[in-house]
């Protein structure tokens, strides 16, 4: 049976045009669904892989208070992954299937997590800069056209803001500590500044999907717009903290009312995207090991549930 999709598409376009939300039961163009699956899955994967670089320091947290804060944060990331995988399930793809795609390298996650965490200050830098950049990217997504995604994003953004403040607060506390601690903060910021800028994606000229995604309301600002916003937001925060960014070209442009800044190393960016970053292999191997090691537990849980149902039906 051939369905005439024209009126459906018209209704879809009208919903988008009115700024209303598409819900799981609504008709949607296949390409919209596929683009959303890719984007939401990538976001979910980023939360899950993102547990590793910070999780690396849980067992070495230098105070019990910080240990609790970090544990709770990494736990929140697992929670975010959970919401987002649920959102993709409303689009017809299971968490299991997406995990397989991640492990097999068929789906990506945010490249920032392919950088190593080398000192405890990195926990702070990730909170401040990485979560900060993520929020810039994500706040507009709270108004994204797909309902479940938008609602997940509202909750996630709220928690991310909290994480960002915690990260900044850690760095601020360290800056009030010893000279070694201050040097540790500066060194960490030096390492994370450029990768954080790369989180907004390649320059607009090299970002082919942006136009379609903006039309569909899945994306609401260009990469370069968001990057500029992030720089403008971060510079005064760095000043308050007492650190500098490792960019000699960074300076206020009176005319534009914005900061000028240097170019990230896009060659490095593409290398990391392509899988050759410092930690890509390690991150995927870690995720794969956890998934494989847990297989027997998931199977046992399924078998147990099946037996319980069978008993009920007896």
């Amino acid at each position, binding site marked *: 049976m051939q369905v005439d999709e024209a009126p459906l598409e018209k209704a879809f376009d009208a919903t988008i045009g009115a700024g209303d939300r598409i819900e799981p039961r609504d008709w949607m163009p296949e390409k919209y669904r596929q683009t959303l699956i890719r984007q939401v899955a990538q976001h979910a994967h980023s939360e899950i892989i993102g547990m590793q670089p910070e999780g690396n320091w849980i067992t070495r947290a230098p*105070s*019990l208070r910080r240990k609790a804060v970090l544990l709770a944060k990494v736990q929140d990331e697992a929670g975010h*992954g959970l919401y987002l995988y649920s959102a993709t399930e409303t689009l017809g793809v299971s968490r299991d299937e997406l995990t397989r795609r991640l492990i097999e390298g068929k789906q990506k996650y945010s490249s920032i997590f392919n950088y190593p965490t080398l000192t405890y200050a990195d926990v702070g830098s990730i909170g401040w800069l990485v979560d900060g950049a993520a929020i810039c990217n994500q706040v507009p997504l709270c108004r994204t056209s797909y309902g479940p995604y938008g609602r997940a994003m509202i909750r996630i953004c709220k928690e991310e803001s909290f994480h960002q403040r915690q990260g900044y607060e850690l760095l601020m506390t360290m800056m009030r500590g*010893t000279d070694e601690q201050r040097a540790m903060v500066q060194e960490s910021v030096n390492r994370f500044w450029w990768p954080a800028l790369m989180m907004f994606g390649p320059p607009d000229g090299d970002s082919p999907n942006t136009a379609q995604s903006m039309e569909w309301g899945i994306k609401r600002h260009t990469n370069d717009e968001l990057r500029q916003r992030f720089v403008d937001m971060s510079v005064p925060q760095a000043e308050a903290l007492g650190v500098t960014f490792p960019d000699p070209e960074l300076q206020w442009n009176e005319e534009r009312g914005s900061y000028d800044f240097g170019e990230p190393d896009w060659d490095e960016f593409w290398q990391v995207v392509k899988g050759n970053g410092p930690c890509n292999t390690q991150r995927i191997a870690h995720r794969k090991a956890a998934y494989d090691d*847990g297989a027997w537990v998931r199977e046992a849980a399924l078998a147990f549930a099946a037996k319980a149902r069978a008993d009920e039906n007896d």
Partner: protein
Amino acid sequence: AAELAQYCLMLGDDALVYAHRLSEWTSRAPDLEEDIAIANLALDLVGQARLLLARAAAADSSIVPVLPEGSPVPDEDRLAFFREAGDFRNVRLAETPNGDFAELVTRLLVLSTWRLAIFERLVGHPDAVVSAIAAKGVKELAYHRDFAGRWFVTLAGGTSESRRRLTDAMRAVWPLIPELGEGTDTERTVGVDPAAVALEVGVVLDQVLAVGGMTAPDVPGLARVRGRAGRQGMHSEALSRMLAEMQVVARAHPRGRW
């Protein structure tokens, strides 16, 4: 007060050390739901450890490691990060290196059942701080035990593989159970005699095992060394390795602010 401090160290170290083992599971659990749940367990225990170590330090400041003058490191962190392995008072079961998920479930079942029984009695402790810590902890530990019990029964009734692993886990955990019940004069004097809850703990464990159709392994308890075990600072080789990792950043910055 010195005895109360020692008692709080024992309970605090159990929580701190086992929280470390649980926290090592982060990003490694069989599924996201368990990752979140295990982080919750670890968070609860870190919380209990903080309160108990702080209480220990307040009861007897002489146990708190001395740091360079002017160091802002709070007492709870001095105790957690600046003591040597031989100064820790946790039972050896808390420090055993992680095995698989069946080992997590089995060990958690034992430790939380036992700790819950102690904490239920400590709610009526004359020390108001200990009493309050226990009241809060009872709710947490009841959840820990339920989580462990549910999974224990699930693995017992799941697949032949899960049952085999659970059997192995029980063989690994059971030799460390007698130490839990042996107790010290300190526990008997200012806290709860573990021997007094051993029966109750045994009944609960038997119930869970019965639901899962599992039998307790017939294995002897791990020997003490000249009468000493974890409570007397006689630990396994694993503890000093754990502490090397746990304490490394704090110790590199004895004047640090975090």
